[in-house]
């Protein structure tokens, strides 16, 4: 089912390196033997230019936001303008963690929902610090990555986005 030569490339972007590292480790561990995946981690965009020639074409960008840290939101907001417009056709998603300890949130949920709607991208919620939630989130991301990389015949990133659209629509009506 998967093309054996072509790898899927995901980019995780977020301020908190520990979260990104743990998620990246979980993703590659789940992919042991089945799919070829490479995960790039970055703390902000634009990327440093020194490794330009080694960078492959990215299939999926995941922006990781922590509700407890306003700094993670500003990092993502300053990085978004540097993303090429073509990515926003289903190849970008926002991943929000830290949802369980609601009283300590520094970022309002509305801000994030508005962000996802403005950039017309998927919004995922999951507590990355708990292992079982991190594993299930990694499985979802692998599936989305496979679709975005074109490994699933008949299904493209744009198809996926339009299928998920009903979940974005109610938010648009609220605005």
């Amino acid at each position: 089912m998967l093309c054996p030569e072509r790898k899927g490339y995901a980019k995780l972007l977020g301020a908190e390196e520990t979260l990104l590292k743990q998620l990246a480790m979980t993703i590659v561990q789940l992919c042991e033997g089945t799919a070829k995946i490479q995960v790039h981690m970055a703390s902000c965009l634009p990327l440093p230019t020194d490794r330009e020639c080694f960078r492959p074409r990215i299939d999926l960008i995941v922006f990781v936001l922590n509700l407890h840290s306003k700094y993670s939101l500003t990092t993502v907001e300053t990085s978004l303008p540097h993303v090429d417009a073509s990515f926003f056709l289903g190849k970008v998603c926002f991943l929000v963690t830290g949802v369980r300890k609601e009283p300590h949130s520094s970022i309002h949920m509305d801000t994030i929902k508005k962000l996802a709607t403005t950039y017309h991208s998927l919004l995922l919620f999951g507590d990355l610090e708990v292992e079982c939630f991190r594993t299930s989130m990694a499985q979802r991301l692998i599936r989305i990555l496979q679709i975005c990389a074109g490994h699933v015949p008949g299904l493209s990133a744009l198809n996926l986005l339009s299928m998920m659209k009903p979940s974005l629509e109610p938010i648009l009506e609220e605005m």
Partner: protein
Amino acid sequence: MDEIVAEFIRRTILKIPLAEVVKILRIWNFLPESQLKTLNLRQSKESVSQEVVELCKKKHASMKEAAILDIIYHQTCQIKKIWIVYKMTKAPGEEVDLFDMEEFKDSFKKVLQRTLKNVHISFRESEDNAVWIRVAWGTPYMKPNQYKTTYVVYHSQTPFVFICHCRIKKYIPELCQALMTAGSYHEIRQMELRSLYLDSLKAIVFKQYNQDFQTYCTPLEERNLETEIVDPRIIHENMKEKERIQRVTREAFGDYVQPRIEFAQYKLETKFKTDSKNGILAEREEPFRCLVKFSSPHLLEALKSLAPAGIADAPLSPLLTCIPHKAMNYFTIREK
């Protein structure tokens, strides 16, 4: 032996964790070793303290010895009370006399007892030229209350005094006067530095917190290697940025373990700044008063880990990083 003394000793022993009781009694050196060996530590704490009181009764312990026991307890166990740092200064042009511990103690006692009746003063010298002073306060009509005590730690080779006040605050001026006179100083000033941890305060004011540099260098390098991901399928794009953050953090905080303080308080007396011309707070002449308090079980280590964890940008505000260098954790920020 007085019932008051007996009760005081009983309550003091009750406060000491069971594992430390014999150690503290040994340091106290009032009960002979043979009796300490026969102490049954397998019973409840109440019974242990009762047994110690009985032994003390036989030896006719007085309040004087009991006060020393109290000092030793405070010196050995971590007390949940705040220490405040004071700095004394000499008058300009005054000569530095040779310090004599006995003279200091005599002078301190005389001055304090001259101004206040019914104070009970105890001294205990410790190593590094320091003396612990315990003062129990009374009134002209009441004997000193042994449960309302102020502790003073004075390092004779330095102008610093560490005071742990009790709830009775009205005798602070007299206490300060006694310290100044006894130490031949001209002035005493409270510093903006407070913490539960006396050792950390000492490390900050004596500038000894950065002496661990050599011992902490290698574990840090080892730690860095361990956290590197060896998996070739994971690539870190911003290694340079990560290294910059670590370098900036190291420059601000050093490689050593930070002294332990629990809070930093910033009192803001600055005007409210806003871009919009509307709103009730804009264009106000009076300062907008606001208090910001940072608290943590180990504040400086927490601040040090903010930038590497990606929760804050590096470099951190100098208001936060200057705490050990300026020996302050209470700040007042005014309009420039």
